[in-house]
């Protein structure tokens, strides 16, 4: 026991967090990591694809794409060039809840990079003549899913498992992407790119007072808006086969879990870790190691603010797909019989290592603290999380599993033939 306290005493892992919420609702949250040379940011804007209007699936993604095509005094080329000259490694993505912009570079360049992103938020050009280019980028991404069946089955699984709009793929729909107008893009930006509910996480070698003042100057008077929440509609069919001409059959299985902020979060994710974390986990051992059924098999925990699930995947040759599905479902059901102490020990070791190693990456931390703020409204130290993990016991995990046994599965398969789902 007390793995963490002992270890933390040895490494003297001092964490310094800061947070500041501006009057318009924007929260800036920071972690100083003075040993690093880099600094990173993660900006979560509450403009996810859950807010795509009916028949406009993909509007959030196209708005994100168009926002990169010029803002403030920069056209799209200057935007990219200036960020690259700052050495910024950047990425942007759209999830159900957020449009996220993130980047990492040498610490001294972070303020300048943030300044450029402020233009994107507040002074985007949305050039009408580039709409078709942006549209084509989004359409290419949507089409490419068809050539990646493993990706496709998991998108279709989420779509069916969660009530709409919470399982939508951010890539959108062809129908929506083909018809979106520049006015709709501008309107989406105006409504949903807003400070209230937005979170900016910064981590690395940062000078907190300077970053806080800079963000205050640049975004403190950014006006908010209160758009309507999306309507939640019941999910569709829970068992579905999608015909696909391929060697392998892709299998996706989902069942319900508890969200990040739930008091049983550590028990829930602990159970997933026993199923699929490391090569000694149950799914890897039973499906791949003992039977050689798959190259890839896993279960992963997926959380939104108010709902969560465990998403499982296996891909195998069509003639062995039935056995793979049976063995995988068997392992999920067997979880209800409880976990063993040696499984718990390995789980704790893995979580502990991952926590410590996060401290080696500013990008990883800027993302974590922004997401923690989104889910909890605060940031926990490694020590606090470590204590929670130390407190985990087989009993507490088994109690959780007994109360939430894996079942009521959503199953989506993709391949040449449908499979039977044993009761």
């Amino acid at each position, binding site marked *: 026991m007390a793995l963490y306290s002992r*270890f933390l005493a040895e*490494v003297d892992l001092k964490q310094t967090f800061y947070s500041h919420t501006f009057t318009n609702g924007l929260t800036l949250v920071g972690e100083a990591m003075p*040993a690093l*040379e*880099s600094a990173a940011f993660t900006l979560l804007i509450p403009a996810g694809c859950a807010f795509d209007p009916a028949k406009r699936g993909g509007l959030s993604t196209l708005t994100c794409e168009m926002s990169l095509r010029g803002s403030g005094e920069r056209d*799209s*080329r200057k935007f*990219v*060039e200036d960020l*690259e*000259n*700052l*050495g910024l*490694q950047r990425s942007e993505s759209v999830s159900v809840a957020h449009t996220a912009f993130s980047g*990492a*570079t*040498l610490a001294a360049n972070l303020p300048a990079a943030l300044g450029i992103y402020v233009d994107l938020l507040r002074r985007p050009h949305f050039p009408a003549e580039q709409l078709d*280019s942006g549209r*084509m*980028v989004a*359409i*290419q991404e949507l*089409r*490419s899913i*068809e*050539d*990646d*069946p*493993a990706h496709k089955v998991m998108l279709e699984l989420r779509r069916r498992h969660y009530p709409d709009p919470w399982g939508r793929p951010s890539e959108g729909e062809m129908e929506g992407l083909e018809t979106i107008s520049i006015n709709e893009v501008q309107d989406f930006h105006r409504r949903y790119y807003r400070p209230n509910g937005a979170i900016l996480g910064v981590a690395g070698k940062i000078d907190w007072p300077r970053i806080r003042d800079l963000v205050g100057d640049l975004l403190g008077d950014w006006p908010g808006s209160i758009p309507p929440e999306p309507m939640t509609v019941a999910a569709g069919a829970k068992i579905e086969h999608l015909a696909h*001409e*391929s*060697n*392998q059959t892709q299998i996706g299985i989902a069942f319900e879990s508890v969200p990040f902020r739930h008091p049983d979060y550590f028990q829930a994710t602990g159970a997933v870790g026993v199923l699929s974390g*490391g*090569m*000694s*986990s149950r799914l890897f051992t039973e499906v791949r*190691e*003992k039977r*050689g*059924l*798959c*190259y*890839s098999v896993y279960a992963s925990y997926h959380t939104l603010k108010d709902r969560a699930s465990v998403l499982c995947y296996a*891909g*195998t*040759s069509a003639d062995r797909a039935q056995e793979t599905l049976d063995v995988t479902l068997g392992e999920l059901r067997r979880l209800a019989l409880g976990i063993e102490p040696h499984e718990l020990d*390995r789980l*704790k*070791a*893995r*979580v*502990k*290592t991952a926590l*410590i*190693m996060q*401290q*080696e*990456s*500013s990008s990883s931390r800027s993302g974590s603290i922004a997401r923690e703020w989104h889910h909890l409204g605060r940031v926990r130290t490694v020590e606090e999380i470590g204590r929670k993990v130390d407190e985990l016991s087989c009993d507490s995990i088994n109690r959780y599993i007994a109360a939430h046994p894996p079942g009521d599965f959503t199953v989506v398969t993709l391949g040449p033939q449908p499979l039977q789902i044993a009761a």
Partner: protein
Amino acid sequence: MQFQHTTLANGLAVIAECDDDAYSTALGFFVQTGARDETDAVAGVSHFLEHMVFKGTPTRSADDVNREFDEMGADYNAFTSEESTVYHAAVLPEFQTRTVELLADILRPSLRQEDFDTEKKVIIEEIRMYDDQPPFGADDQCRAAFFKGHPLGRSVLGTATTVGALPVEEMRRYFQERYCPSNITLVGAGRIDFSRLVDAAERACGGWTPSQSTRTLPGSSGQEGFQLLHKESATQEYLIEMAAAPSATDPDRYAAKLLSTIVGDDSGSRLYWELVDPGRAEHAVLHYYGYHGAGAFFTFLSCDPDQAEENVKSVLQVYRRVESDGVSEAELDQAKSKVQSRLVLGSERPRGRLFVVGSHWTYRREYRSVRDDLDALCAVTTEDIRRVLKRHPLSRTMSYLVGPLKSMQTPA
């Protein structure tokens, strides 16, 4: 940051970049063997063997191996390329010795028939998985055609047929020949206690019987050609191209890396502005790889089949233009900022440094700090880039196009 190295009596090298401020320890055994060291009779054996290494030793079952790594909370894996097979783990510093002992033990695997038969199914599933993801397969064909007859033309995975037909005795023979101590380097990065590392290596690997293994290093200038492969089930059309490039030991490798960044980085490059920004292609990138005794520039493009013909022409025009006009100072500066920043960010984690330090050593028997590499990048001039293009024109390619298209005019 301190570099240390030694060589055991049996020829196994131990090297480490020690950083006392790091939170974690990264360790890896770099075996200098891969697809290029195979013959037709054992095609795919290097990668299959990499899987078998985790299947147990005289004193450990496969379950023991997986369990012991997980007990340490290790972040561990292995990969096989054309030229090397690497077994690596990142752990908390307290597990340094235990990790070396475990990795060293699995590098003397039992290679039992029963495990071999089960794992063969996993490898075949891996091949079938990629087979359902176009343009898989075309890259191997392009490589074979480009390196025609050269060892670097061999496929890492092999095919379901070659792997299916492989007998365990052939794998054991290959192992004996290639996994000798002089062909293996133990690499450490991050928080490393070097004297304990050497002690552990001596105890765990000192008894390995020394022998010699060789690798042939014929030159290769690369073949030219164009092939259209029809794949009805694909949605997008894919272009894979290879052109000759500086080798991993050529001082021009830094200029080649910057050239590929200027011309074909996934953002802000010439291919990006020509094809990706306007939405003409989903991806259009140019990468540089240096090998022992040869090198290659790889082009990868994916797009709507209807636009493929025009896009292939545009790629060629981009390449011809840079060959005739060179690159500007501004472009070079932008590429340097990008590559240098990636290098620094990637080096913050010990497991990032592990591969860089290991690669410098296995290719060139040298240590280069992050600063050394930053300086080398900084020193590249537009004239260096011009020289690389002259010696290795990007437009002289072996090209494979795969997807729904049934016919296309060869770009001239």
